[in-house]
Every structure is written in C-alpha cells, then in structure tokens.
C-alpha cells in the first residue's frame, strides 16, 4: 500500500455544531454503548487505521476558548473517552482505539495503567491522544492550582517562558512517565516458578524514579507491560510549542495545514524539532487533520454544509482545513497533500453517520481504485498498522 493512512476523529454527532440535527443522527443515543459500537464498527468495516475519541473535562463549546456549557443548541454532555474505547474494544477486532486523555489534571500513574489495560482488552490496539487543558473552568473542577491564563499567541514561541509552555513541558514529562511505567515490567517478568514459589522475577520489575518539575512518580506500574510494549502516543499540534511536545513525545502528531504548501512547511518544522529532540531516526507520523463534508456531487455536499450552517446560524469554522465535495475530490486532495510529506490523515466527519459512511463507503473504495488503500487489515495491532516496531524495553538488560 502506498497511499496515506486514514484515521477518523469521532466527536459526538460530528464536528459541525448542528450535526446532531441532521437526518440519521442519533442525538439521544450519544451516551449509549450502542452508538459508539456502531460508529467504530463502521470505521472498522472501512479498514481504517484507527479512530480517535474526543474528550474534555468540561462541557462542549464551539470554539476552544469559549465558556463551557453556554450553548443550548449544540451537543452537551459526554462520556469518558478511555471508557468508551474499552467498551467498544471487545466488539471490534482490528481497528486502533485512540481515546483522548487530558494530562493537565490527571495522574500519569492512573492513565498509564488505563491505556495498558485498554491494550490488554483490545489485544494490542490501544493508543492515546494526550491533550492539555488550560482554561480556568477546567482548573476549577479540580481546585488544585491556578493557571496563569491560556494565550494562543504564546504557542508560537517555544523560547519564551509562559504558562502555556509550562503546560506542554509538563505534558512531555507526563508522557515520559507513561512510557517509563509501560516499560517498568520486562515482558518476561512473570515466571510462575513453582520450584522457588516465585510468581514474578523481581529483578525484572523496575522503579522508574521519575523526578520532574511538576511531579514525581516512583513506580513500577501495577499493570504488566502491555501487548504492544508501548501503545502509540498521539497529540494534536497547531504551532511551535505543541510541535515540540509531539517531536519529543509522540508517535503520531495531528497537524492542521490549510493547503499543500503549508503542509510541507509544517512537516519540515516538525522534523526539525524531531532532530532537536534527538529522535530524528525514529518514526513520527505526521497526520493532516481535515474536516469533511461529503456528497455524491460537489453541489450536494455544498448544499448539505450550507443547510448545517444555516441551522447553526453561522458558517462553520475550524482549526483544520474544511473540505466540502465528493469522495473522489477528497481522494485527490489527500494524495496531493501526502506528496508534501504527510504520512496519513485524521478525517473529522462533519456529521455522523453521513460523513463517516461517505468515508468508509465512498472515499475508501475511491482510494482502493487508485491502489492507495488497503483491502484488508495487514496487522493485528495498532503499531503493526502504523508500521511501528514493538519497542525494546529501556530497562531490560541487553
């Protein structure tokens, strides 16, 4: 397969604020297991690489810095993404499951074992998307600390000390702790040696002894090393500071180019940061995020989006490129941008189920027709699908 890898980003009834009002939407079922099972199975039927599940510690907003819960005309309320992924895991077999986890207010020890356990229950299909939370509203849910304010302009300058840079540096420490905890058990630590009465070889369990600026963690994990060794870590990034986090810490970074030239520039910037982080030789996938509104004709797609915009009372705006058109047109765009160095795409369906099934039943056959997408799953693990080797354990004696 020479085409791009395709993931799909699932969020409620879709990414358009009015998506829940579309025919076929199931707005009353967004808190049920049946809904999530159906949409992930649809993605799996299309042989997509993985799904991401959006999450937040607060109620939904239209724009990231809006006050949570203010709107009565958008989907409000959601379930924990890690638990959704776990609920769906036994009912799917090949697709990767990548829940979002907020790292600013949670415990890396808890998340490490949660993702390791997701890897066990999915037999090697877990990943995680790490996300920072900088709003005062999120802080107040925990009451633990005050954060100096989230200014988007700070995200462009890694050199300048700012509360935002601290958040991302803390996130990098967090991911380091996740990875150390996953490695804190060697793969063959469980020995069940009846002769000596030992269940484990304690020499193969390791204290991680992480000491950082924000927290320290002793280890080892309570959960043995997961099937993939280390489930892939992913992050969304729009600017230099988060690119640096991704370059230091992630296996997949989602970026938001507006066109092919911008895609090339972002890839170059990420690769520079990757070299700076000393990871130049490692695989770091750069996925382009694209919001998609699909139709059988360009006009039909445009009409659908116009209808949604009218329902919402405003033209849809996004951090990512918004594509409106046919599956064939989208295939053209993806293959063009792939040429700029992107290794895959995370498509955000404007409305579910319509745009999700347009991806699995329209885009996928279109790409296959061009020899640019798989016809069957070639691996049983998410790492396998992403072409990532199972990593050696940093603590194992060579």
């Amino acid at each position, binding site marked *: 397969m020479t085409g791009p890898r395709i993931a799909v980003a699932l969020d409620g009834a879709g990414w358009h604020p009015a998506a829940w009002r579309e025919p076929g939407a199931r707005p009353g079922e967004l808190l049920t297991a049946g809904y999530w099972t159906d949409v992930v199975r649809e993605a799996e039927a299309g042989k997509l690489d993985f799904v991401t599940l959006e999450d937040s*510690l607060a109620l939904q907003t239209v724009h990231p810095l809006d006050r*949570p819960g203010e709107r*009565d005309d958008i989907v409000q309320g959601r379930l924990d993404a890690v638990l959704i992924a776990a609920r*769906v895991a036994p009912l799917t077999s090949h697709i990767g499951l990548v829940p979002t986890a907020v790292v600013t207010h949670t*415990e890396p*020890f*808890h998340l490490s074992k949660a993702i390791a356990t997701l890897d066990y229950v999915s037999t090697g299909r877990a990943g995680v998307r790490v996300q920072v939370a900088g709003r005062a509203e999120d802080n107040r849910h925990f009451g633990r600390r005050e954060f100096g304010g989230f200014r988007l302009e700070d995200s462009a300058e890694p050199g300048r000390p700012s509360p935002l840079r601290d958040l991302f540096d803390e996130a990098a420490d967090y991911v380091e702790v996740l990875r150390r905890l996953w490695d804190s058990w060697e793969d063959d630590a469980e020995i069940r040696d009846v002769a000596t009465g030992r269940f484990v070889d304690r020499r193969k369990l390791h204290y991680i002894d992480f000491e950082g600026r924000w927290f320290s963690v*002793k280890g080892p994990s*309570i959960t043995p090393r997961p099937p993939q060794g280390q489930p892939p870590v992913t992050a969304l990034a729009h600017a230099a500071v988060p690119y640096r986090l991704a370059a230091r810490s992630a296996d997949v970074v989602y970026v938001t180019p507006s066109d092919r030239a911008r895609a090339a520039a972002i890839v170059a910037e990420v690769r520079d940061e990757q070299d700076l982080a000393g990871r130049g030789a490692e695989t770091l996938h750069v996925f382009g995020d694209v919001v998609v509104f699909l139709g059988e004709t360009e006009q039909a797609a445009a009409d659908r989006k116009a209808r949604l915009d009218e329902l919402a009372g405003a033209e849809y705006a996004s951090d990512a490129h918004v594509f409106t058109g046919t599956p064939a047109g989208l295939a053209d765009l993806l293959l063009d941008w792939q040429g700029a160095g992107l290794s895959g795409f995370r498509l955000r369906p404007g409305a579910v189920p319509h745009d999700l099934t347009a991806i699995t039943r329209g885009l996928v056959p279109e790409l296959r027709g061009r020899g640019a997408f798989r016809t069957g799953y070639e691996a049983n693990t998410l790492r396998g699908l992403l072409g990532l080797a199972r990593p050696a354990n940093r603590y194992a004696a060579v």
Partner: protein
Amino acid sequence: MTRKQIHLAAHFPGVNNTTVWSDPEAGSHIEFSSFVKLAQTAERAKFDFFFLAEGLRLREQNGEIYDLDVVGRPDTFTVLSALAAVTERLGLAGTINSTFNEPFEVARQFASLDHLSAGRAAWNVVTSWDAFTGENFRRGGFLPQDQRYERAETFLRTAWELFDSWRGDEIAADAGSGVFLRDPAAGAFAHHDAHFDIEGRFPVPRSPQGRPVIIQAGDSEEGREFAASTADAIFSRYGTLEAGQAFYSDVKGRLAKYGRTPEQLVILPAATFVLGDTDADAHERAHVVRRQQVSGQTAIKFLEQLWNTDLSSYDPDGPLPESDPVLGDHTIARGRASVRMYRDPLATAREWRQLAEAKSLSIRELIIEVTARQTFIGSPSTVADAIDELVQADASDGFILVPHVTPGGLDEFADRVVPLLQERGSFRTEYPGATLRDHLGLD
C-alpha cells in the same frame, strides 16, 4: 412464607495468597480472556455483581518487591467497561481509592461506566493514607490517619453532588427546534470545604442508576457509621453465625438514625469455598489447597509481618521464634492492608505461641490455621445448606465468593451449588431487572 433471597457476588482473585497460581488449571491474571471467563460464569449463575479490588503500589517486604503471590492487575475502570461489552446484566463493581483521586474525575468515570453498562456500576470506596502509595502520585505524601474517613466521606458526598447535578430531564435533543439542552444550568455544581474547593459544570448527564451502587468495607466504629449513613452494600469480615449476626444487627441497627431501612444496606462477607463429591472429599481438597496457599516461604513472610523483622533463617517446619516482635513505626512489609490488622503485635504473638504449643504446630501449620478465612467446605448440598442457613439467620445477606483458581474457579459453584439454592427458593433463577440496583433490591 417466601424465603429471604441470597445475594451472591464474584471476586476476581487478585494479589493475595488465596489465589493458587501454581494450580495447573490457573490461567492468566491479566489477559482479558480471564476476566471475561469469570464474569460470564458469574452472570450465567445470576450473581449480583463481579468485583475487582485495587492496589496502587506493588507490595514490598524487607525492602524488596513481594514476589510469592500474584503480582500485577489491570486498571479498574478500563477492565469493567470492557466487561460491560461481554455481559448483559451482571453488576460491575470496582475499588477506587478516594485518597489518590479527585472527586470530579472519579464521578466522571463512574457516571460514564454506568452509562456504558446501562446501569450496572458499583463503587467500592476505600481510603489510604500511606506515603508509600503516595509516591506514585502527583498528590504524593499522605493523609493523616485521623482524616481518612473524613476525606472519604467528603469525597463521596462531593461525588454525589456531581452525580445529582443533572436531574435526568435536561436533554431535549430536539432537532426541530434546535434545542439540545433544555436547562441552561444542567450540571452546575459548587463544593467548598476543607478538602475540596471545586465548582463548574459536570459534563456527564444523569446515568441510568443516578448514582453507582456504593460499597464500603471497614470494621472500625467510624467505618460502620460511614457504611450505615452512605453505603448500599458492605463487605464484612464476619461470615460465621454468631459474629455475623452481631455485625449484622449492629450495622443494620444504625440505619434508622439516617432515615434508612434495613433493606437499604446489603451485608456481604467475603468467603472462599472448596467443593467435593462428599464432605470428606472436600475436606481433603481443602487441605491440599491450604498447603498450596501457604507454602513454607509464604508462612515465613507472614510471620515476618507480625514479627516485623527478617526471619528468613527460620525453618517453616520448625517452631516459632523465641524472640518477641519488633515494635516501632517502621514496618518491614509495605503496601499490604493486613499489616495494619495487628494492633497489638505482642499480644498476637503470645496468642500464636500458645496456639502453636497447644496443638504442636510448626510455623507453616500455624500460619495455615491463623490465616484461614471464612470458607465453605463440603459437598454441594452441604455448602448450599451452610450459605442458606447463614442468610436465613440474618448472619448476612449473602456472600462475595473468592475462588482460589483463576479464572475457572467459580464454574463448579455455578454448576453444582447455585441450582440447589434455586431449588430451595433462596436464589433467583432470572435477574429481576436491568440494573444492579434492581438486583440488590435497592431503590
């Protein structure tokens, strides 16, 4: 007269020496298939719930990771949510510590689990104060012991405020009018006290059970009051007739002052079991099981926990040490709950020495005797009789069963004992409803 109905739950055997990992039948303690197997057996037998314990740091003894028992367990929420996919009615109960978590996060996870299981979530609220476990967490440090119930109770009440921040009718999802959220204040909360200073909007709408079932364990005066005031079920330590009845009447007697009725708290002692075709067979098997559970090394390690010193040079088949336990704040065993049960080590050591002398017991034989838990041993009909009699006599409302082999250790009980209880009319043949609250007879 209809018979009092027995409640049964299944504990996934975890990190303790009850679990016989050396049994040829023993499977993985971490692969998901093991959890599926035990949970599906419990559901087939119409048990109320599946229960998973938790520990947040690997145990140590003599400064080393304890390696004789099963080591390693999954994340509670994640494995319970996955089990919701492969079961339909079985309650899913997990231990979640209230010391190294925040109420907002735990409430969000339990409300999510209750949605994803369609109303089958239960929370065993436990506390911890030890700095040893705290070394794995941002919060770090410890909680002064006298604050543990205070924080736990405040934690739970704060979580309830979050669960109750949605009434259940706020979501209109009316595509025609475009109103998704009928009530603009849905999920609003504010809680300010010495432990938690939080406010905002809770993002999970009301779950099928409203609140997960609350389970609690704890035998102290504060623990009993906490259970009487707030719990739906309690794990007790008393499974024998007299001790069980005493605990039962004491705790149920405390409910009235909180405006609650005796049916609103279900008392479940933990119990192991060994079955055989005859009582004699069962006792023979039980003897073998106890020898597997308490090896010579395990016996020495247990003795060290009371003596609080290295006894590795002692012979497990020999007599107890002449010396007395070492007193002091330093304990050689860390992360093990039972260590705290020896409130007066010198007195306990004196009792053990007297017992060993009276019965001529070696160290290993003594430990086998003193660590014996509530156990049903006998033929299926003997065990069914014993369980039914204890429940009918108000020594408990049922039992949480701890099989000693993972994951198939419950099969024999499900196949041979449960039908006998059903024949007597003491145990359900079908689930009475869809939610765990329905199974437990709670509102």
